[in-house]
């Protein structure tokens, strides 16, 4: 089985602070991986590096066979805009704070990128957007603006928007953390359905442990920029091996 994502000895620093230290991590195509751990442990940074929102200083990273650093690449990212564009064409991201475009309708939010970036015909992009909105249960909101939607609805639109670009890898950065408790379920429901997609690779940073156990093929526990323990979810949650994992799980499950 080939890896679609491969971190090899990646080191990421913010000034004097080392967030990832010689980090190694592989993800198979189609795998659903959940990243858990205390805040500041580097799990969101892994997603942000994959989305090219953050550069890293050392090591190698490949996504779908494309290396992030170019051999003569310049700047923080050690790569040209063109190269970064190529990398990003395989990845999509769903943010904690949704980040919909407030000046565009729901439909336009979804159609904009396929038309502007993928050069898709507007009618085709719209008919696909309608399909995606139906899938997330928000077709009736297509002409509304983000400010007219609840947080849960905005996040479902954001998921549809990311999917419209047909990413091979979809990253979820704490997608339910900014939501009122009663709205969490509707977003998790959409993600649960997506997890049925065989070919879509998903990386999910979350604090929803029960959900992590239910949807993922593998759970990775992060602490201080390293994966302390990882494994198949049933084993991971019932019988964690590392003391640090046990400590963390008992604090979040009983807290």
């Amino acid at each position, binding site marked *: 089985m080939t890896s679609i994502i491969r971190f090899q000895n990646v080191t990421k620093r913010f000034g004097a602070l080392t967030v990832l230290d010689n980090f190694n991590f592989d993800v198979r195509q189609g795998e659903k991986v959940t990243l858990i751990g205390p805040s500041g442990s580097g799990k969101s940074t892994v997603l942000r590096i994959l989305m090219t929102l953050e550069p890293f200083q050392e090591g190698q990273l490949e996504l779908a066979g494309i290396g992030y650093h170019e051999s003569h690449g310049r700047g923080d990212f050690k790569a040209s805009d063109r190269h970064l564009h190529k990398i990003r064409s395989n990845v999509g991201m769903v943010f904690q704070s949704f980040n*919909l475009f407030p*000046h565009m309708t729901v439909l336009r939010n979804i159609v904009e*990128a396929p038309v502007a*970036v993928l050069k898709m015909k507007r009618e085709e992009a719209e008919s696909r957007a309608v399909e995606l909105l139906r899938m997330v249960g928000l077709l009736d909101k297509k002409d509304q603006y983000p400010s007219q939607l609840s947080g849960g609805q905005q996040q479902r639109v954001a998921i549809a928007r*990311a999917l419209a670009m047909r990413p091979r890898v979809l990253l979820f950065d704490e997608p339910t953390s900014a939501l009122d408790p009663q709205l969490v379920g509707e977003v998790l429901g959409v993600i649960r359905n997506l997890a049925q997609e065989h070919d879509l690779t998903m990386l999910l940073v979350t604090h929803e442990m029960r959900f992590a156990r239910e949807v993922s093929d593998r759970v990775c526990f992060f602490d201080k920029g390293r994966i302390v323990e990882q494994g198949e979810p049933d084993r991971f949650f019932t019988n964690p091996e590392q003391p640090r994992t046990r400590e963390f799980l008992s604090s979040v499950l009983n807290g």
Partner: protein
Amino acid sequence: MTWTQYLAPLMKGAQITVMISLTSIAFGTVLAFLAGIARTSSNPIISGIAFVYVLLFRGTPLLVQLFWFYYALPLIGVSFDPITTGIMVLSLLTGAFGAEVVRGALMAVPQAQHEAARALNFSKFHTLWHISMPQAIIEMMPAFGNLAVQNLKDTALVSLISIADLTFQAQSLRNITLDSATIYTMTLAGYFIIALGLMLIIRFIEAKLRRGAAFPRSAHS
């Protein structure tokens, strides 16, 4: 002479004032967008040129700028007629102040919007014109309103490079009639009415933009 006899010459001056003001606001707005966007550029040469331009025009008095362009520039072989000089200098000044408004509004667009645009693989150009600018432009309008009124009031100085604007006409009338109270009261009223007109136009544009964008001010943070 009665006050009604002052009306015709003052109206003639007011027309010049309105023409100079509207023209230099239009050119100044274009300059403001060019320089304001250039200021946010990651290219140090582009942002450097814009920075120096803004610094020079914000840091020197308008009257001296006018004199420099009108009296000093011809000495190195470049000369323009008074109206062109007046419009040029006022455009450059309004553009310099406007550039800071444009830059400030662009920088106030949340970082999260840029990240979302990046995650969707938009080009820098598309992000600027279709994501940042539509959100920023509404925030610019109140400040642009102030600049427009400031520009109108600044036009009074062009009378000093022999342009027959409202202030120039008032001065000429007063020199003949010595009726300072009536003439200057009418002149003040004239500027005030033009300023009101300008403010109404800006309000109208802002309301139109806000409706077109259809997101209430409170709802975007």
